């Protein structure tokens, strides 16, 4: 099957998968009880609670509640977030952009460092550099994210004062428009260099904390793949042809070693998104993860529904992208059969 046909087929199936997922997720959230609690205080009388239920249609049977929810979604109304004290649709794009910015920054850290370290170590198998990188990788993979985050926080925010927490200097943030929600991009679009520096400065600590674990995984995968590739006959043939060592490594061995590594990178994206919850809490990053954690703890089901649906859709899309990238890297892979 052609890649184009495969993509079209997957995209046609996507809406049904999303609706099916929404029914399951909605039912699951209601198993945990009515979501009315997030809108209440312990001083509300029963009559006031009833009024609140009517306001949010929570006095209706669950299927009718789902109807109201899906109708709202169709009209761009994802419900009211009790945690954020605002409509979910207003808050979600900002939180989404903040989390994606962090995840992408962490991904850049992880992929660039991971591939470089893996290549470096693989080409120097069992040498000193390999051992050093192994130690770095193993510690990165085994060190809990919250632990590493706290270390960074204490050293670089409290002791040295080099890096801030949060997402921005409020004055710089408020000084520019935010058409994309990505602070770095918005700062560049506004031509505000100070705001861009501020964005990057705030990104460094959480991105390094979050990306470190993924770096380790990618580096280990890259190293072992590269070692396997370097033992293949075609590598000997390339060397015999007189190709420089560097060319053999980068043009032949590394390219093929990237195939399994790209799969890992795809999976790593999920790891990064999961990790944002901890990183956002510790570094006070105002993203989806921190919002979601608060929503779960406080039973904010409108937020939970949105987040779960968002991650479901995201994973469906990422899986599709990984499949396509995989096929591009290795033409022997057949799609859809």
């Amino acid at each position: 099957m052609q890649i184009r046909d495969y993509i079209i087929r997957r995209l046609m199936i996507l809406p049904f998968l999303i609706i099916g997922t929404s029914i399951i997720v909605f039912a699951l959230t209601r198993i945990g009880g009515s979501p009315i609690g997030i809108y209440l205080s312990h001083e509300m009388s029963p009559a006031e609670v009833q009024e609140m239920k009517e306001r949010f249609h929570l006095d209706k049977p669950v299927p009718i509640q789902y109807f109201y929810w899906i109708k709202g979604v169709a009209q761009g109304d994802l419900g009211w977030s009790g945690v954020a004290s605002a409509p979910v649709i207003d808050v979600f794009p900002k939180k989404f952009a903040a989390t994606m910015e962090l995840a992408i920054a962490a991904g850049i850290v992880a992929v660039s460092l991971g591939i470089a370290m893996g290549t470096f170590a693989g080409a120097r198998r069992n040498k000193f550099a390999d051992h050093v990188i192994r130690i770095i990788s193993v510690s990165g993979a085994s060190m809990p994210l919250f632990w590493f985050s706290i270390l960074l926080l204490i050293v670089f925010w409290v002791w040295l004062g080099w890096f801030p927490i949060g997402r921005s200097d409020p004055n710089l943030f408020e000084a520019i428009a935010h058409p994309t929600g990505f602070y770095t991009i918005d700062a560049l679009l506004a031509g505000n260099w100070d705001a861009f520096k501020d964005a990057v400065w705030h990104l460094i600590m959480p991105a390094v904390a979050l990306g470190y674990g993924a770096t380790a995984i990618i580096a280990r995968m890259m190293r072992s793949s590269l070692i396997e590739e370097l033992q293949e006959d075609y590598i000997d043939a390339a060397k015999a042809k007189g190709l420089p060592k560097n060319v053999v490594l980068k043009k032949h061995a590394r390219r093929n070693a990237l195939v399994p590594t790209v799969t890992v990178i795809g999976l790593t994206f999920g790891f990064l998104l999961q990790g944002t919850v901890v990183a956002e809490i510790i570094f006070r990053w105002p993203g989806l993860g921190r919002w979601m954690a608060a929503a779960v703890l406080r039973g904010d089901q409108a937020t939970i529904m949105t987040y779960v649906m968002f991650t479901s859709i995201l994973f469906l899309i990422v899986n599709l992208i990984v499949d396509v990238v995989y096929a591009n890297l290795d033409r022997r892979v057949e799609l859809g059969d």
Partner: protein
Amino acid sequence: MRNILILAHTILLGLFLSVGVNSQTIKNPGVLVHAADDEATTLDPAQVEAGEGGETVILQVYDRLLEFGPSGPELIPGLATTVPSVDNGMISDDGMTYTFEIRKGAVFHDGTDVTAEDVKFSWDRIVEMDLPEGQAGVISDIVAETQAVDDYTFQVTLLEPSASFLNSTVVSMAASIVSKDAVMANGGVVEGEPNEYMAQNAVGSGPYKLKAWNRGENILLDINENYWGNKAKLAARIEIGAEPDVRVLGLRAGNYDTIETDPSFVADIEGADGVTLHTGGLLLEPIHVGFNLNIPEGALPKEDTIPTDFFHDPRIRQAFNYAFDYEAFLYGPLAGFGEFNPHYLPIGIFGHDPDAPRYGAQDKAKAEELFRAAGYWDNGFSVSVITEEANLFADAALVLKDSIEDLNPNFRINVLAVAEAVFDEAHAQNPVEYAMWVKNADPFADPHPYMSAYQHPDGEWGEVHGFANGYRNPEKIAELIDGASTELDVEKRAAMYSELQKMLFDDPMWLITAQEGVTMAYREWVTGFVHNPLWPRPSLRFSYLDK
């Protein structure tokens, strides 16, 4: 997640003691950075709940007719130029009519003048909207009519004379004055429906203007350069929702100027370089165990063995009060920051009688005697208490469990510590399907709301919790509470509350565990620090502060 945070907490506590910063270098000059606990729910005075995070902002950006001064319960002029009294003729002789002269020259943040019509509109608006989450009753329960006599004279007629009108209604955040023009241009007033614009924006006349509200991140307040009174010296930034450990670290590092904390962090802050710990004063939100005298048949958790009329017997309620280990709670979870005050009026509130009889020391012998007399000593009982998880309420419930179970191995207390939302929903049932709960009361500045809302047999909660089923003399208690609310003679009124406290000692409907102490921490470079528990938490008016 919780385990992660607990572990993170432990690690932080182990590490941050070695934190050292240059305490002389003022960070964030020109801006007061306050690290708060919660996100605000709304910024609309007509929608905000008492004690909720939105009141923190409303206090700074809106004015009221009168305000509490910096050092206690004394009232000072706000948008009204004078505090009304019978002597100055602004309260009628029958105590029914109050007149307020509105300050000329005061302007809203949108540039429009503050007039008596805005005041009338603000008060009428909250009553007309009558939102379930709001505090419309603060006005509608006491005010019969409002009138803008002229542009700068506002008059209120009460339903009946009230001793609490000025210091419970007029100073309430719900009675903040909003710009009529701004409201009418942005959704107007609709009965039963929140105004989304006002929930997320603020058009007041206070010393601060709302600059931005970045959800989950911060709220930015600019100095109102056109403020009629003393202008704020610093802009303000409220950092929202930082973990308690991060707040403590940020304070020690000088990144935060003031933080909200609780007694469990005092030991980590005390002695920190450049940090001042403020521990004076008491919160006005008594933490209590509530007894349910209106338990529906078959509703209790299956572990509970008590009959539905268990708490109808005052001896049982007294026995619980005698059995509780008050010291364990005060010196354990509260780390010694608080007071034994098993009174129904907090210390610091008019009418609190320090000489009234009280519980406050564990008396196991007395508790045993009462349980025996009530007929439960030999066979024992099992009863559940519901509370929010992972906070002082849960701690109080655990102390109750230890106290009661230590008294008699046949007694069993099941602590149901649940998420806040679950608790709120459970407590809002009528009737409540649990025999006991632990929570705190709303803070008030006057004794009447404490008594009418919580102890009156026909009051908001007394009715739901069936107090009329258990009071020995419900009519007398109701008569005293109602009478004290309209008694304008201060001494007579105080005597009535004193008598009420004696009656409630004999006939307790709560077990008051302690009155929690104030624990605030701020950088030494912050000057002008004043803290008044009568202001909404964190009980700071940012406009008084400088650095």
